[in-house]
């Protein structure tokens, strides 16, 4: 597997990514700024941090309550310790009911590689969020938590859709959307199973909450006979009233909207006398390394509500997109989550430490501090011997003023033997002002 540097270099060499990612990330970040102007954003962030930190602290009890209420509402709850457990459970249910699944956007499902599992079992998976659908057709992974196809131009989308349509399509977004709408509608109506993500799960009522703009989440959860909601265990919150803070903060942070087009609150399958809804509802509660984080200094990362705001303001993400981070989550939250949940300690280095993420995080996760902490972990656990030795020599020299003076003089004359000078001067001059 290549390192972050190589993946980043590949992204930098992709002209369409370079054209599209900065543009849409910047625009979305600006929408967020606008949306925060009309509210007490700082007060709301503080309230949200308190709600999320409290929920993470109470997580075991809240999950028990959530399960109890969901089961009382007629849903089936499955606690998955690992991603493989979750994928197996979903695949077993899907296989029992047919050979097609319609799916709405879910980062948890990306995390567990659900589509690959389902396809390996001979089940067709259709992503129904437009952005997810585009990256699925392209055979790629989402580049952004909220805007999976942030890197695609409309020409690329046309080229991807035309073979499916079997006819020429223009590049007008309305035409492309109309095609996708028709294509997906047939699947919504015929798929026996719908899989969705979860934005929040309210323990006191046994309700999963889903925020979408296209209505596809509602289709996936209400048209098929079986609805399976997959949630990271940290999505749980205590009360419905918490949503009055979290929902507007999520949508304003994610897209700059006061509220999304659709907010679905689902408390169990269709009951007797109800006109619509699934016959069966399953809620998969995924651990996959999360509960372990509760007892570490990284606990606050579980506060994340997956809004993508940190990605939009990140100057590193802006240039490389999300997949260059090597796993599911890109940007600052990816640089923190990937080492913690996926084990790649290098990712903590994938930041210039500019701290722009700290200022926009709706739940005030101290991403900058967590990145520094991850770097200390890496230095202690997985840094190479050459790097350790380099810092040891550096500190030996620079704790002695005469060696410090000598080395700064050498570096200033660009005569140092250090390879870091070469890594600097490959793309930049070293301008010295004596």
């Amino acid at each position, binding site marked *: 597997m290549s390192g972050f540097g190589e993946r980043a270099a590949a992204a930098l060499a992709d002209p369409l990514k370079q054209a599209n990612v900065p543009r849409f990330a910047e625009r979305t970040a600006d929408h967020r700024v606008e949306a925060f102007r009309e509210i007490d954003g700082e007060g709301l962030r503080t309230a949200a941090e308190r709600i999320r930190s409290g929920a993470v602290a109470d997580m075991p009890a809240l999950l028990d309550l959530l399960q109890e209420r969901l089961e009382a509402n007629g849903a089936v709850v499955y606690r998955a310790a690992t991603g493989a457990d979750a994928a197996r459970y979903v695949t077993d249910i899907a296989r029992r009911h047919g050979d097609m699944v319609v799916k709405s956007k879910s980062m948890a499902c990306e995390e567990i590689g659900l589509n690959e599992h389902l396809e390996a079992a001979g089940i067709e998976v259709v992503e129904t969020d437009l952005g997810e659908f585009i990256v699925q057709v392209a055979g790629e992974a989402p580049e952004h938590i909220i805007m999976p196809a942030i890197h695609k131009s409309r020409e690329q989308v046309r080229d991807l859709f035309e073979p499916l349509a079997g006819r020429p399509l223009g590049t007008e977004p309305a035409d492309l959307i109309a095609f996708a709408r028709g294509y997906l509608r047939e699947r919504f109506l015929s798929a026996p199973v719908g899989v969705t993500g979860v934005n929040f799960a309210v323990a006191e009522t046994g309700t999963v909450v889903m925020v979408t703009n296209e209505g596809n989440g509602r289709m996936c959860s209400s048209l098929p006979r079986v609805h399976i909601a997959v949630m990271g265990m940290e999505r749980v919150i205590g009360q419905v009233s918490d949503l009055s803070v979290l929902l507007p903060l999520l949508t304003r942070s994610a897209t700059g909207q006061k509220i999304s087009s659709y907010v679905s609150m689902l408390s169990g399958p269709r009951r007797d006398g109800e006109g619509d809804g699934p016959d069966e509802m399953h809620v998969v509660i995924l651990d996959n390394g999360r509960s372990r984080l509760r007892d570490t200094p990284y606990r606050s990362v579980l506060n994340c509500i997956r809004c993508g705001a940190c990605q939009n303001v990140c*100057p590193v993400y802006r*240039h490389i997109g999300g997949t260059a981070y090597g796993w599911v989550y890109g940007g600052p939250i990816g640089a923190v989550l990937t080492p913690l949940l996926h084990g790649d300690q290098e990712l903590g280095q994938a930041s210039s*430490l500019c*701290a722009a993420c700290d200022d926009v995080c709706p739940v005030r996760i101290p991403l900058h501090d967590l990145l520094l902490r991850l770097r*200390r972990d*890496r230095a202690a656990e997985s840094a190479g011997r050459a790097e350790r030795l380099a*810092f040891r020599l550096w500190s030996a020299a*620079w704790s002695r003023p005469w060696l410090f003076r000598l080395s700064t003089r050498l570096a200033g004359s660009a005569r140092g033997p250090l390879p870091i000078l070469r890594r600097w001067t490959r*793309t930049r001059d*070293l301008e010295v002002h004596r």
Partner: protein
Amino acid sequence: MTAMIGLFPTCLGEAVHRQAVRDAAGLLRRAGVEATPVRGATCCGQPAWNSGFADDARRVARRTLGAMEGLDAVVVPSGSCTAMMRLHWRELFHGDRDEERAQRISARVFELSQYLVDEVAWAPEPPAQRMPVAYHDSCHMLRELRLREQPRALLAAVADLRELPRADRCCGFGGTFSVRYPDVSTAMADDKIATAAAAGIGVLASADPGCVMQIEGRAARTGAGLRVVHLATVVAEALA
């Protein structure tokens, strides 16, 4: 008894930006502050701290910390070094034999424009001619120290201050980040240079030697007609 004020050149100040350090001393003198270089100080430890090597960072920072004992204030012509000393030294020396000393001394460390504007309320005599200049915020100075207006106030007093669009966006230096991932770092510098060019900016000032080194070095390599200067130098030149 007169106050003892030290000027901490920092490692980049010693290695590549001696002119900025001299200019900082000159500005302090104009403001009526006689600052002497902190004898025996080397580096704040930031390169190792930001790379996760806390022990090595502490080893170097301890030398600098000790050299600052007895000073009433330490002025630093670098936002990120100031942030390291004012904010991160507390954590770096937490539980250490020098913890008390680090807390005491870190509170006396000031970034140059912070010291000139907030501490001594220096108001330079405006020159007859004001040259256009824009300001680039360094990340740690802006988002850790929350120093936004102080450098702008200095520049506005002596120059024709223009706003650089997205002035708060990182230039891509990031210390060791710039050599760990030079491709991404360079793309970020190009972004900064392109933004300045689109806004018709010819002179860009920053209060961080790292940012100056990064943007200036890339502009020089690509032949971009952008002059990147340390804040102290711009102000000193305007008053010369």
